[in-house]
Structures are given as C-alpha cells and as structure tokens.
C-alpha cells in the first residue's frame, strides 16, 4: 500500500513539475489579516477597502494593499463566477476519454482549445482525460461526443455523463491560471 502511494506521489510530482511550482512546496502563507480580508470578500466581493477596513479595525490603505499584493502574487483573486446559462449554455456533461498511441496531454490540449470545454484534467485510472463540457442543445452534445471520438487522434473510448442536479459547487479554492 505504502509503495503504491509513493509511486502515485512520484507520478504527481512528475506530472505537475515544469510549468508550475511542485505540489509539495508549502506555497506562500497568508497571514491572519489576509484571511480576515478574504472572509470579508466572501460576504461581498466588491466591498470597498475602506468598508472592510472599518469592519476589521484596519486602515483602508492597508486593506487595498493586501488585496493588491495577494492578487499580484497570484494567491487570491476576486472573480466573477457566472452561471453557464448566462453564456447561453443549457447542459453540462462530464466527458471522460481513454487514450492510446498518443500522449494524453496532447489530447487534453486539443480539448482545452474548445471554448465550450470548461475544464480539462489528466487523471489516474482507466480514463486518462476528464473534462467538463457545456452545450446549448442535446443535439450539440451528441455531435460533440462524436467529434471527440472521431476527430481527436488517440481517443479510444468516450464516456459521456449528463450533469443532472448540482448539490454543491464551491470554487473558493482552485487553480487560478490553468
């Protein structure tokens, strides 16, 4: 068991190395003030620095500087999350692919180039690539699945699952730049 976990850890480090800091680095720590500012931004993402400062007993300048610094370091950003329906999509599906004779990374990049593919991950297990795909109609979904299996070299099996009800979605932690 230990051995398997070690191997997985090594695979993780190998897979995330290069263009991104290794997973094992401690990263930059936020301090207590940063965390309280983030908590205030969770209540209102557009709260004025002065208002946050008053609430926390800090100067507005300090709050503004902290927010700027966290943003500049790529540690935290206040973003707008729009529902997929705002962008005209009506359906979401998870599409998972088995890949053979080609690097899964290349397949993933081909998928990532499509605007209606919202996220793409390389995963352990039978399916090498997993993505979240948005669609405007059911016909779109069927055509996209056919497109992926016939149009992307290296793709073997395609598994499509329609997302029905979403019970939880909390993007409070996530990759900011992928």
């Amino acid at each position, binding site marked *: 068991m230990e051995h398997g976990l070690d191997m997985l850890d090594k695979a993780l480090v190998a897979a995330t190395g290069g263009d991104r800091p290794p997973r094992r680095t401690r990263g930059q720590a936020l301090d207590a003030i940063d965390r309280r500012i983030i*908590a205030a931004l969770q209540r209102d*993402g557009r709260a004025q620095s002065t208002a946050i400062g008053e609430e926390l007993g800090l100067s507005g300048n300090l709050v503004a500087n902290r*927010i700027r610094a966290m943003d500049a370091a790529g540690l935290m950003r206040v973003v707008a999350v729009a529902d997929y329906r705002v*962008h005209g999509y009506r359906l979401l599906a998870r599409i998972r692919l088995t890949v053979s004779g080609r690097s899964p990374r290349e397949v*993933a*990049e081909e998928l990532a180039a499509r605007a209606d593919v919202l996220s793409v991950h390389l995963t352990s297990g039978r399916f090498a690539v*997993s993505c979240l795909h948005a669609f405007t109609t059911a016909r779109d979904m069927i055509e996209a699945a056919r497109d992926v299996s016939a149009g992307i070299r290296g793709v073997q099996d395609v598994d499509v699952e329609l997302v029905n009800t*979403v019970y939880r979605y909390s*993007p409070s932690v996530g990759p900011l730049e992928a």
Partner: protein
Amino acid sequence: MPDDLPPVVAPDLLDRQIAAMLAQDARLSFRKIAADLGVTEGTVRGRVKRLQAGGLLKLTPIVDMFRAGLADGGGQIMVFVTVTCASGRLDEVRDRLLDLPLVRALYDANAAHRLVAVCLLATVAEAAEVTNQILALDGIREAESEIVLQTVKYNAAIGPIATLEDFAPAATETARRSTAASSE
C-alpha cells in the same frame, strides 16, 4: 433536465460582456466597464444587481490551490470520486457526502444512480482514506476514485451556480476559523 432557468429575464449579450469583464477582476470599477461597453454606469450596476439577484452571478474570492500554503487550501490534490448507489438510495448517500466538508462539488449524473464528488485533499494517503470512508457508506454499490495528475484547463468564471441555495458553503473554513480565533 438541468435547463430550468430561475425566474429572471434571460441574460443577453450585454450581461455576457459584463460577466466576461468581471471574470478576471470582480472589483473592476463599473465606470471602466461602462466606458468600455458604451453604456452608462447605472446600466452596468443594474445588470450586475439583476444577475446577482437571480443567482446567476457571484463575485467571490478564489484562493490559488497551487500557490497558497497548505493551511489555506493550497497544495491540495483534486480527486473525483464517482459513486454508484444502490437502487433508491441516492438521496441518502448524497446527504452523507454533503456532510463531508472536503467534498467541494457534488452532482448526480445520467440517470438515477450515480453521484460525482469533487474532493480537495492534502495528501494521497488522505485520498485513499476518503475513498475508503465513502466505500463504507451504506447504500453504495461501488466507488471509483480518479486522482487529478494535472489540470490542463480550468475556467473558474463559468459554473453551475444558479440552482444552488448554498453557494460555496465550505468556503475557506480556514479563513473563517482564523477570524473566529482572532476575535476570541
């Protein structure tokens, strides 16, 4: 079918343009957005308010999972756990999964029996433990976990948020905890 829009006016091109401008920086001034899009500041303010009221737009801080320290949710491993429930047990299993704060997203897929949980975990060992915990739940036929080795694309600006009553419930518990701790 997940296509039931909440009772708001259907979003139009201007809504999409405003959402796109706020996607990268939700604190951008409405004046700047208005100037760029050739509308008044009041229009921008009204549109944002309407989208927010309809649950279609959330302005929220995101902590980077690769750059932040472990205490703030950084350096975590993303794991997809796909659970096949025994017939008629989906609601029960769903509630048990929602009890786990490390389940950051949960939805049911295809027909009636399948739940997909997106978990954020500190170590591979923890991932193994969580899969074991989930497998031990009553009403589950099988569970399969996939560890994310690399994220090639992640669009934080679009998500399934409109039908949620409770958005970001697990939102940086660390932030909340430290706030509580420092006010004690």
